[in-house]
């Protein structure tokens, strides 16, 4: 495949935005990413975004996102109703054609406008599941219970994930939640939906992120250390919770193998695990051992802007590699109830 690199990344702090619209959150981030890339706007041959109408509560929410891009003269552009990580996949595929050398990828979402766990219910099978109104936290709790019952992990393991995430997030200015805490302290907290406690679940946050990709020579020209996409793949599983083993992630395993993630040493992994128990499932599926730093940014437990958090994983991993803090990293994104769909991206510094 043609060599494609992440050459710049920008993100907004994840917060509850009272005053700004999605476009206003997005606009400064887009311009930062383009400016940092060192690539002229005219050289960006393809633009693609990820967002979701249901967060904004309106049809065509992405249309207004285009206002922030400054799409004039008209641009080659597309949009996925998916996390921005999948928009990045589409851009990577488009760059393989060879006729353009740079692409802009962005994602935005304002989860705080509605009751997010209930909004997510509308993502479930509309005939058999959604009418029962299981909210997203209850659905995740079923998975956590299945994982604990399988015996390999405990509530303490989950609390340790949450405590480590919060401690790491203290040095991440874009995180929404952080703090010096311990698993012992967190285990004293009450359940929200057994066996999940508040710290096992993400909070609703608003945000945006943008990445500029460049191919081959252009990437080497503009970036001090281009971060190459060595492999990227994504897979989906059956939707019905009863049709798959919730204690593992088969689609992550397939995607990781296809992306070439399985054999090599991985210095750091940014995993989109919005619930603490999901990090445990993903670590097992990816075969990550003690050598790999997991979610040094604090991860999605500390900042979970819907539709954006997957793209942020790629951006966070790439930024650390670009700064020389790591050489080889793995970024992961997920979508759907209980890790139904997963993307794995292997990144490596020049």
């Amino acid at each position, binding site marked *: 495949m043609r060599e494609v690199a992440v050459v710049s990344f920008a993100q907004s702090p994840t917060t509850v935005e009272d005053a700004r*619209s999605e*476009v206003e959150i997005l606009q400064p981030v887009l311009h930062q990413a383009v400016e940092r890339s060192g690539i002229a706007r005219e050289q960006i041959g393809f633009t693609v975004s990820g967002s*979701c*109408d*249901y967060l*904004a*509560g*309106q*049809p*065509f929410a992405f*249309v*207004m996102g*285009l*206002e922030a*891009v*400054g*799409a*004039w*003269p*008209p*641009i*080659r*552009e*597309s*949009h*996925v*109703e*998916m996390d921005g990580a*999948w928009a990045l*996949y*589409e851009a990577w*595929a*488009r760059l*393989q*054609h*060879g*006729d353009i050398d740079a692409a802009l990828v962005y994602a935005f979402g304002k989860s705080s406008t509605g009751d997010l766990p209930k*909004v*997510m219910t*509308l*993502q*479930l*099978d*509309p*005939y058999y599941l*959604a009418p029962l109104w299981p909210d997203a936290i209850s659905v995740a709790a079923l998975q956590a219970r299945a994982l604990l019952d399988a015996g390999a992990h405990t509530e303490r393991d989950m609390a340790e994930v949450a405590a480590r995430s919060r401690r790491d997030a203290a040095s991440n200015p874009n995180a929404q939640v952080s703090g010096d805490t311990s698993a012992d302290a967190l285990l004293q907290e009450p359940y929200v939906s057994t066996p999940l406690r508040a710290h096992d679940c993400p909070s609703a946050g608003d945000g945006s992120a943008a990445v500029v990709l460049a191919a081959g020579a252009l990437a080497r020209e503009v970036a001090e250390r281009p971060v190459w996409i060595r492999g990227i793949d*994504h*897979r*989906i*599983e*059956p*939707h019905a919770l009863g*049709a798959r083993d919730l204690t593992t992630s*088969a*689609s992550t395993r*397939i995607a990781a193998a296809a992306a070439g993630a399985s054999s090599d040493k991985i210095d750091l992994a940014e995993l989109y695990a919005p619930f603490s128990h999901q990090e445990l499932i993903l670590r097992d599926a990816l075969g990550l051992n003690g050598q790999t730093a997991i979610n040094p940014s604090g991860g999605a437990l500390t900042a979970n802007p819907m539709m954006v958090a997957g793209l942020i994983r790629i951006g966070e991993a790439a930024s650390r590699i670009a700064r020389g803090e790591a050489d080889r990293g793995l970024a992961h994104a997920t*979508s*759907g109830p209980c890790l*139904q*769909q997963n993307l794995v991206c292997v990144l490596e510094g020049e």
Partner: protein
Amino acid sequence: MAQRTAVIGVGQTKHDTKRDDVSMAGLVREAALRALEDAGLSFADIDAVVLGKAPDMFEGVMMPELYLADALGANGKPMLRVHTAGSVGGSTAIVAASLVQAGIHERVLTVAFEKQSESDAMWALAPKIPFQMPLVAGAGGYFAPHIREYIRRSGAPDHIGMKVAVKDRLNALRNPFAHLHMPDISLRMVEESLMLWDPIRYLESCPSSDGACALVLASEKAASAAPNPPAWIHATAVRSEPIGMAGRDEVDPQAGRDCAADVYAQAGISDPRAQIDVAEIYVPFSWYEPMWLENLGFADVGSGWKLVDDDSTALDGDIPINASGGVLSSNPIGASGMIRFAEAALQVRGMAGEHQVDGARIALGHAYGGGSQFFAMAIVGRERP
């Protein structure tokens, strides 16, 4: 260099006001299975699935591709979901083709659908949004002023819109999948129908349909094993421009002009009217036929209506437009753009049945969306590019 890619399978549902005989999953599967049958393949042969549809509020299901993964045989495979407003059916086919052109996959199934009867598109288009001007009147209310401006600029006579409405419904009688079958359609019947958004009458508007469309895209190697003739992709292009930019021309959008220039350049077309044998263009309201004829370069600015008036765009004219009956006869919104591409492919494969244009070798598929700001186009041909 992008890999050669072809359409080797086409499938459509019977489009209708209310397909209450199937769920959403049943609807998309009906189209997918027909496309696979045409391609001589089964779900197991497919490398990836790309789903497209217009706003999720049209059915009330958020990101329905998650629930539809099983029905489309996507389990264990890559699945993408595209949404680019009304152009989405076209954009989705282009994303699917891109995966083959990139050399990533050999065979990609792409499906687009809308099940409008699950909800109410007028309602879904009319919420009051903070920070934004309300749309209130639905798509017709949004586009009617653009049509009035076209009539003012071009001096087109009143009957042009009605003539398009009759022509497309007559073509639809030859298409078994079309939603509207109106054997007694006439200019008088259109004229007497209710004026909805002046100058758009009821019968000059597209219907609300339930329906789905599917394509199988294949690499050159995979296409050589296909049982039916392939439609080779000679060009694809997309262009977008901002809805709110002051001074943009919504009647003759620059994005549409640029997109057309891009596909023509890729396909080596310098005179579209002479070199393209048949075109499927996205005409949700009758007057958009002459408007897009100009935007696409089939006619000079101000004279697109003359091609309607002298029957050039009829099935037996020199540039048949919407031989299938078009969006005016079937409008499952999210699928409508892909149906344009599918019908263009059927024409160059010689598989369009009763609405086949004799000897069609080069065809254009066109879709647009949003506030006349998103464009997706493809040129397909009988021969390899």
